[in-house]
């Protein structure tokens, strides 16, 4: 039995296999409509979520399975003080697979230690969010055809952004990848992430504070939100925030086939005027999340 806690739990070959399955699901959805008949997915969401929970539930429904669960801690026994370990042990008796989101970092790992069924980490605080990374990888693969020889720009909060760290780790396993890290000084990628996944692997990279300067060389631009609460003074925040708003003017500097991704929700870091640009792939990315989660459920349930 396998769990998915960290994206690095899966090898690059296993991720390629998931992407191949998800691609086939998009092309031939009818083949998969009964694959999980009589199977149940429990969605245990101890904090709110829109995309992740609904895409998990839609994924299971499209596989012919059923869903049960809760969408906030107050409607579960956690409100009475039940431990994560006990909740997992009990729910694993009711469902065949569990997707869990929890505000505490490491909660899904604790659940996995007590569960008799596969646990999927659907986000644990500011730590991991592996199915978002699978969604990002699937979208890049669909849009660009492969991961080889891509220059990937990551922009915004690269210090605290969990999706950024996981994406760097996952992409670092492919050949020809190059990173452009675009952030204010205060929100640079942590040195352990840079050392482990970029420097020690000899991956070419560039660090810059200028999105304008980086735009022409990018094949993929991964936008994240610069968060006000990370700054000690308001003046710095306002100065930096405005330099990372993606606008049609900035898009003019980009390659014709560049794509823009964002884990969403966005606040103001991508102007809504960019939405109609065909290179804006973030809504397609959100939709892709359902297909890659279908592939993941099939893999963890060992359904052919």
């Amino acid at each position, binding site marked *: 039995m396998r769990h998915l806690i960290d994206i690095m739990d899966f090898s690059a070959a296993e991720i390629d296999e998931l992407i191949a399955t998800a691609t086939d699901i998009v092309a031939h959805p009818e083949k998969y409509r009964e694959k999980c008949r009589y199977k149940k997915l429990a969605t245990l969401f101890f904090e709110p979520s829109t995309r992740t929970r609904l895409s998990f539930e839609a994924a299971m429904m499209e596989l012919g399975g059923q869903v049960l669960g809760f969408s906030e801690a107050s409607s579960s026994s956690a409100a009475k003080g039940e431990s994560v370990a006990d909740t997992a042990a009990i729910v694993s008796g009711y469902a065949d697979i569990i997707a869990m989101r929890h505000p505490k*970092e490491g909660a899904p790992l604790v659940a996995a230690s007590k569960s008799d069924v596969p646990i999927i980490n659907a986000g644990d605080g500011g730590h991991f969010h592996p199915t978002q990374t699978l969604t990002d990888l699937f979208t890049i693969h669909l849009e660009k055809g492969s991961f080889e020889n891509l220059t990937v720009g990551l922009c915004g909060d690269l210090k605290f952004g969990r999706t950024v760290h996981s994406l760097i780790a996952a992409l670092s396993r492919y050949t020809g990848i190059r990173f452009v890290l675009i952030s204010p000084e205060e929100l640079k990628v942590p040195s352990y992430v840079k050392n482990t996944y970029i420097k020690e692997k000899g991956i070419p990279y560039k660090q810059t504070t200028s999105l304008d300067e980086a735009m022409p060389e990018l094949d993929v631009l991964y936008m994240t939100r610069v968060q006000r609460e990370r700054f000690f003074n308001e003046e710095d925040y306002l100065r930096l925030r405005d330099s990372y708003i993606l606008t049609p003017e900035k898009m003019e500097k980009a390659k014709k086939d560049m794509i823009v991704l964002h884990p969403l929700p966005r606040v103001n870091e991508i102007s809504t005027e960019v939405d109609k640009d065909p290179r804006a792939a973030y809504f397609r990315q959100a939709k892709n999340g359902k297909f890659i989660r279908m592939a993941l459920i099939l893999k963890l349930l060992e359904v052919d």
Partner: protein
Amino acid sequence: MRVDAIKNGIVLDHIEAGRALEIYHLLSLDKVSCPVAILTNVSSEKMGKKDIIKIDGALSLPLEILGVISPSITIVLVEDGKVREKRHVSLPKEVTDFLRCKNPRCITSTEQGIHHRFHLTGEKNAVYRCVYCDAQWS
């Protein structure tokens, strides 16, 4: 103070200056009944300054774990006033229920009945990270 000044016990030498008290508490030496001496900022040719802890009693302590705190530590076992063994600490691959994660967002801060586990992620700088939340222990 000389190493052989104790009769039967343990000397923890070459502790990084300023960390002796931390080790004293981690080994729960405040709860033992035998004499314990803490020397801080002792001159050292190798380290410039170092701390030393001398425990005058044959205790069973989880000494190998000390590499987590300060990889430079030398453990000296003294028997009948003589040095019986002198060894360097090693870096354990995993440490269970010795360190506690300081990250308030970590599940170990609220969940009861789980082991506090850290694993070695950087041998060169003795970097240990919480198995649950990946926070670096410091």
